[in-house]
């Protein structure tokens, strides 16, 4: 199939995750270490005594992103590499939108993992077992939704709705508020503007 399909689907699926990585993680080597290890350990603190210990939220975000990227990559990369080869999609009556659907599904899975990570870590810290249960159940729900696979409409739409809800929840869990969002969007948030100079 065409190179357009390959690049398009690759960027749809991995573009946001890559952007998140480049803008928030790649500049800080410690966060890269987190991403690779997937969890922090006490050992890291001893290596870097002059830096403040990374916050739990940062850890949650980085590990969510790490797991999300890994799961997305493992699910999608073989399909992507097949899309470079010869063939006709849907020749046996399957949907011709196979690649596009897989790409969007991968994207939503990666983002969901990020949000789930934040909510889960917060739930563990504050011992809110309901949060953990909801994360688990939504994960199962999303996977179960993919079983109705030929009917992409319901599948994708409901998963995206779940993602938006999780995103809003993670935003508030991570300390955001309507006020801070407004300040950020209107470029009035002094903390955000000083982001690069301040260690978080």
């Amino acid at each position, binding site marked *: 199939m065409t190179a357009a399909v390959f690049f398009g689907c690759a960027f749809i699926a991995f573009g946001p995750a890559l952007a998140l990585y480049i803008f928030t993680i790649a500049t800080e080597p410690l966060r890269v270490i987190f991403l690779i290890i997937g969890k922090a350990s006490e050992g890291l603190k001893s290596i870097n005594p002059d830096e403040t210990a990374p916050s739990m939220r940062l850890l949650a975000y980085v590990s969510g992103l790490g797991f999300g990227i890994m799961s997305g990559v493992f*699910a999608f990369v*073989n399909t992507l590499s097949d899309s470079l080869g010869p063939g006709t999609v849907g020749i046996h009556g399957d949907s011709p939108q196979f690649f596009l659907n897989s790409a969007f599904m991968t994207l939503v899975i990666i983002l969901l993992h990020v949000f789930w990570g934040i909510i889960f870590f917060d739930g563990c810290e504050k011992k809110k077992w309901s949060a953990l249960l909801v994360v688990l159940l939504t994960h199962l729900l999303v996977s179960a939704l993919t079983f109705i696979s030929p009917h992409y409409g319901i599948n994708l739409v409901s998963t995206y709705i779940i993602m938006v809800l999780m995103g809003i929840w993670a935003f508030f869990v991570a300390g955001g508020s309507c006020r801070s969002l407004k300040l950020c969007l209107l470029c009035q948030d002094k903390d955000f503007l000083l982001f690069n100079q301040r260690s978080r």
Partner: protein
Amino acid sequence: REQSLQPAISLSIYTPFTEDTPSVGQRLLNSVLNTLIMISVIVAMTIFLVVLYKYRCYKFIHGWLIMSSLMLLFLFTYIYLGEVLKTYNVAMDYPTLFLTVWNFGAVGMVCIHWKGPLVLQQAYLIMISALMALVFIKYLPEWSAWVILGAISVYDLVAVLCPKGPLRMLVETAQERNEPIFPALIYSSAMVWTVGMAKLDPSSQGALQLPYDPEMEEDSYDSFGEPSYPEVFEPPLPGSPGGELEEEEETPILPELSEMPAFHSPDGRWPSPTAHSSHWLLVFRGSQSLPWRPGGVKLGLGDFIFYSVLVGKAAATGSGDWNTTLACFVAILIKALPALPISITFGLIFYFSTDNLVRPFMDTLASHQLYI
């Protein structure tokens, strides 16, 4: 995918037992025998090198290192280029080829053995490790390569930890003589070492010395069968020659290194040496203005080579295409301990389990677009 009828070089001198046998047991036996031969060659070379070091034949060692990097940079590059051109059916005339190989190799020799920008040095070290790994992947018989990988990691463990192990003896000799171990090609990923001679002021609090930890080393193999030395961190002794330093002043012991461009850390706070300097002197000073920050990872080149072999074989022979390769990649990155055997073991486990268990599962999931 083997398009060449005759390999340009052959490793059959090291692996004389063929794997083209009628029975599985015979093949396994042959690969184990091949491994034994390879490992004995490596052990013999290590011991030879240790003996050379013990009897202070530094020039010999230096010459050996130069010879091996010459071979890697010129001969193996030439062979690799030949294979690539053949595969893509691109015609290249000899003059162009020689010009390319000459430039590549000459710059590589300069970067690795003399001075050069850090990024270029890293790139060259990666390239020669990859070339070495390619040689192993292409010219070693299949099962022998896997057994050799496993055996190398075991040997690594033994050589470094055993009291009579050659690498341990080497390190102890260097410690006795109180000199830095002759560094071969060691890859350092960031400019993090402060080079400064300082008299350890007993009254300054927080001045630390990095303790020498033999368990933490990784030995490096700079070319086939020739292991080189782990690096040693040498604590400066008070009263060592040239060891006086005021609080404010920083005198690099290798002054020419500090003049190199692009060698200052991002916030410009300290000059850093290249990775290949032949005198490593680490000063760990908590109370001074130059903290030591481990922003980089140091790896022996042997590690690079064997990780590359693992991932390369996963990519070439694993029927799971990307899944297997990625799994090996991830396994190597998530290292429980910074040691070759653990990573290689993880890598091998991940490769075989992914190829046989995970791959069919993921393939079915992906073809039905089920996400877990």
